[in-house]
């Protein structure tokens, strides 16, 4: 047994290469993202540029096959890359890109022609993908799609998509590519009536409207190194008779649910092998408790608050251990959603303990009074955001199935 995360010799020499490359290619003026609801156009463009550089190098999708533009790295090298990036407060991917969900589906269900056409632009960072599953009537029940993709009666190799998606996308409100779940058969039974598409975001008939949400991410998404899954803004997307060529169909017509399930498995915490996430917010919190004069005095004068500090520590340690377990492939079938569930629910507890210790300092973004550059205020909003990527109850359904006690 060995719990150490120290690099091996081979990893260390790769780390030297990564550091050198980052010295040369990571711009100095990239500001670590503190607030998921705020993203300036300027910073987004800089991140976008850096994303492309990573892509050209094969490091945006490091574990994917080289033949499609991935990095072909094994998990032990991917681990080094993620570590070195996070040492510089940079996440992988550096901005919202649900290509991380669409690409496994394309690899598993796409034709060879689709793989060659779709994957290289994604892996090279030229195309950012939005995930469009959720609809007003299809949340946890993702199979209840009302967005229709029906064969055109005039041109048989085209589908016509009509419907309404919600809570999707990212900054800027200009989609490049969309991974869309639809209903392609009005008569077939549930789960056999769906089809998945990867389509260009600028097709005629697509309308994008920004939503006014006070949080855009979950606690696990902002407690680590910030950046990945940072959306900036979410949208309603309307499809008004959008004409889509059948070459955009992933898998066969009617196989959408199978394709989606492969994706949801990744989204609900599967497929995270090799990556060990750190809880940056928990570390910062402990540091503030020790060093900030007001907070440390508060802890001294209110001995019961020590319990809250320790609870946060314990939660972050369980999270770390489950993470390491999964990274080493010891998570069994339920390990992925178990970790995802644990991290989300830990978020709700984290924010109430944090509120006890920090008092109103937990909520302020004031330049003079915010602690740790306002990350705790962001944590307060994200800690109660349980919906993105599936609700805790959706994870529980998955865990129960994997344990053999649920349907």
């Amino acid at each position, binding site marked *: 047994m060995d719990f150490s995360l120290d690099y091996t010799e081979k990893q260390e020499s790769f780390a030297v290469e990564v550091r050198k490359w980052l010295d040369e290619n990571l711009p100095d003026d990239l500001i670590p993202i503190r607030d998921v609801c705020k993203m300036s156009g300027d910073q987004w463009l800089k991140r976008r540029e850096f994303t492309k550089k990573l892509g050209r190098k094969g490091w945006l999708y490091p574990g994917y096959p080289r033949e499609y533009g991935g990095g072909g790295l094994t998990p032990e090298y991917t681990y080094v890359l993620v570590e070195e990036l996070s040492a510089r407060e940079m996440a992988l991917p550096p901005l919202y890109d649900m290509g991380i969900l669409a690409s496994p589906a394309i690899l598993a269900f796409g034709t060879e022609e689709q793989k060659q056409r779709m994957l290289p632009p994604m892996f090279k960072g030229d195309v950012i993908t939005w995930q469009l599953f959720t609809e007003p009537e299809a949340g946890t029940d993702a199979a209840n799609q009302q967005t229709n993709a029906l064969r055109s009666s005039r041109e048989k190799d085209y589908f016509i998509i009509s419907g309404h998606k919600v809570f999707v996308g990212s900054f800027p409100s200009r989609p490049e590519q969309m991974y869309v779940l639809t209903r392609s058969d009005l008569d077939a039974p549930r789960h056999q009536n769906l089809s998945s598409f990867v389509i260009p975001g600028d097709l005629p008939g697509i309308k994008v409207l920004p939503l*006014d949400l006070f949080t855009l991410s979950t606690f696990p998404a902002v407690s680590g190194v910030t950046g990945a899954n940072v959306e900036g803004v979410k949208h309603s997307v309307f499809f008004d008779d959008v004409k889509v060529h059948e070459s955009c169909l992933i898998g066969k017509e009617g196989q959408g649910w199978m394709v989606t399930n492969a994706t949801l498995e990744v989204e609900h915490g599967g497929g995270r092998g090799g990556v060990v996430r750190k809880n940056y917010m928990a570390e910062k919190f402990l540091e503030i408790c020790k060093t900030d004069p*007001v907070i440390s005095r508060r802890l001294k004068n209110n001995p019961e608050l020590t319990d809250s500090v320790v609870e946060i520590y314990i939660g972050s340690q369980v999270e770390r251990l489950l993470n390491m377990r999964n990274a080493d492939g010891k998570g069994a079938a339920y390990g992925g959603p178990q970790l995802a569930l644990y991290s989300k629910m830990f978020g709700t507890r984290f924010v109430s303990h944090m509120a006890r210790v920090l008092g109103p300092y937990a909520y302020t973004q004031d330049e003079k*009074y915010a602690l740790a550059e306002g990350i705790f205020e962001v944590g307060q909003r994200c800690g109660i955001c349980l*919906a993105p990527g599936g*609700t805790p109850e959706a994870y529980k359904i998955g865990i129960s199935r994997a344990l053999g006690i649920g349907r």
Partner: protein
Amino acid sequence: MSLDLSHTKFDEMLRRSAMDFMRGDAPKRVVEELLETDIGMSEGMWKKMADLGWLGILIPDQYGGALNSMTAAGVVLEAMGTGPLPGPYFSSSILGTRIVLEAADESQKEEILPGIVDGRRVLTLAMIEADYTWEPETLSTRALLTEAGFVMDGIKLFVQDAAAATHFIVAAVTEDPATLSEFVSLFIVPAASRGISVKRLPGFLSGRTFEVTFKGVEVPGSALLGNRENGRRALEAAIMKSIPLLCAYKVGGCQSILNMALEYSRGRVQFAKPIGRFQRVQDMIIEIANHADAARWATYEALWKQDVKGFDPESIHLAKVLASEGYWQACTLGHQVFSGLSYSMEHELSFHTRSSRSLYDYFGDPGFHRRKLGKILLN
């Protein structure tokens, strides 16, 4: 047994008129607009509250008020909490009024209280400082005795409703020149005085809280409420006696969340069933109901005790623990029930989330009150 947990006819009438007011004058759209403002209140609404006699609900007749029981005031605050209606009502007509009643001398009461009743005067307490604590012993704002009165210097933080206030009640340290002993004293200071600056603290969950800076602010001797020595006692008594009414506001919030969660769980269909049929969702809603009811009955009892027995710290601490924790948790659970929708800034639940967070620590967080309760229990 004389047990009877119903409200009086009068209080029931008051509840109906308060709920009518909320429906008619402060519907969701209005609350949403007010939440975005620094004052949190409109002139018209404030005037209407004055006309209804609510602004003077704790003020005796001789000062123009319509003094009522704590239970009756609780009915009004509970209704406001359902909005949740923002604005300086609690700061001025409850806490501010109570401080004046506890600390001021007779002529000051005659001077200050009628203005609260008709809405011309809006008070708020400026006590907390950067070194955050609800024990007033560590204040650093000082009021220096001069020939003309006092000069004040210091920074107050997390001050509620500072933009709405016409007057601050400032807790500041004074020194007795003869004995050199120090006191926490209370002053009433016009918000427009030279040397005062007010800045809102940004943050979605931080409510309407402000930094208020006092820089060489000169006030006459008559600004000192009562005498120099009694400030601390008056402040502590006023805060404790006001807490049950803050709790009533939170009870209204909890009830409102329970109602909306119930309604939503009946109508929202996933997997061809109303989500209320899923036991996991039922668990969330049952827990909201438990929080709401625990907070409600602890609050009602604390109000009743104050009405019939006077000051009763034990019941006040209990109510504060349950209402603060309950309101916070009800919001978190509510977000679980509503899921995606409720993270919209326009969703009513998000109004409550903002209010439950910004009021969680007000007068001390649940841990603070647990500790006080522990001391009483083990004494």
